[in-house]
């Protein structure tokens, strides 16, 4: 007899609710340090409408990151911090989910 599951399904950990939007979209990118893919970073996605953070991610082993479950009406900017604090944070402005 199989065990009986009681799964809690997956959810996001957004720091604010994203309202509206009729087209599902995501943001994806990669973090580089001196031209090399870099994973030891913290990537923060901000909402330009209220300047508050939406979500936080650590890049995967290849330095790639993505923010899912967004919409194309959203205007954002992305900030990446170097966890080793050897370099200043970098910002990518006017990022629109696709």
């Amino acid at each position, binding site marked *: 007899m199989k065990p*009986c599951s009681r*799964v*809690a399904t997956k*959810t996001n950990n957004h720091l604010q609710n994203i309202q509206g939007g009729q087209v599902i979209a995501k943001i994806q990118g990669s973090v580089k340090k001196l031209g090399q893919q870099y994973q030891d970073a913290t990537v923060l996605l901000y909402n330009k409408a209220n300047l508050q953070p939406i979500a936080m991610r650590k890049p995967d082993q290849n330095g790639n990151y993505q923010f*899912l*479950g967004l919409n194309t009406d959203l205007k954002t900017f992305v900030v990446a911090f170097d966890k080793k604090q050897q370099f200043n944070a970098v910002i990518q402005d006017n990022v629109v989910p696709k």
Partner: protein
Amino acid sequence: MATDVDVQYFSHLNGLTLGNNWGDLIRLLDKALVTGIDFTQITTASIDAQGDVHITLYAAHNAMLLQVVELTGFAPASFNQKYRIKGVPNTTQLILKPHTAIAETSITTVGAGKLASLGYEIIFRDANDVKRVYRAKNPMSQHPYIRVDETTSDETNTYNSSYAKSAMVGLLESMEHIDDYENPGVLQLPIDTSNLKKNWSLTGSGTSNYRGWSKWYYACSQPMPNGPFDFSTPPSGNRNFTLLGDADAFYFTRSLTPDNHQNKLLSGCGLFNSILDGSIVPSWFLMTTLKVTEAGSTSGGFVSVTGGTPLAFDADKAKFLSTNYNIISKVVNHTIATSIIPDLLTGRSGIYGATSVAALELPFFDNQNRLRGNLKHIHYSGNNRGNVTQTTPLLSDNSMYIIDAIWANPDAGSVYFYLGEFE
């Protein structure tokens, strides 16, 4: 990873009507379960750099985010598949995410599209167009024959046509014709082995009429949790509803009156994810209003019959029906299922409200103390979503959900339906 396209949903927002009219439920089930809804002519179609297909229709599509669309007649043939609606830019345009990624970058022939059905077929229908038997397409032996019967008269006994609207609903193991429900070797749900016609027969007329046993009400004079008062004429007007599922199981939430949208009644039927072998005793469940009262009665309401308010209200009324797992003699009276649920205030108590989507699977056990398995698609909601008045799609990262309300004492609660993963 491919986008999941197996679980589909329909809503009153698609333009389907569910009003105070006989036949509305079976015609709704015909569309949602069997035929789907055809789009008007696709005037333009293209594929973008991300592999999403953009279509423009001649007239309004009435389609919603996260519904499943099926395209046919396109060339190249790789476009002929199922899609999730990724975007609804306006009333005539849709952006579609294919189940299987499409390598081609241009469309040479524009075909047709529709909102895909849940994947059933009509096995039998009657000459008077008031009964249906549905079954999953390409069924496994376990898939039930789902009999839905809106009969109001057998010529001798009559249920007054102005009374509350409901269909008699039950599951059968096999059928040879539309009224084949008296075979003592065939399991039914619900079933009273001393009277195999109990779920399908009428006796008496007027306020003394008795009609069926397991019923799905869809138009009543008062909203949940009052009634159902069969004798009381329901107001006319369309009811809000969600019908969601796949070829294994589906759920149906609806308002019983046209002006109360949040106190919905939940019904459902089909297979569940069983932990027991289902080859002898099939793994069926049925959420329904199970009562035998005369049409003039004001007793036996939703809040006083076992399973009258599935998953909500109190321990007894929150139950539902399942097959009795008796493999020696399978045609025995059905059993009552009890869900293993954190509380009976789904979508209302907000006990996991710090989680953005707190959706928890629902295992259950039966009156014989057998752990049986868990329900497909439907989840307990640990969030308080307030008054949800209509079918509401939600994406949490890549997980797709539909939220709709059910009555959870003393007012609206809600449940999550999980559609799968996007991309």
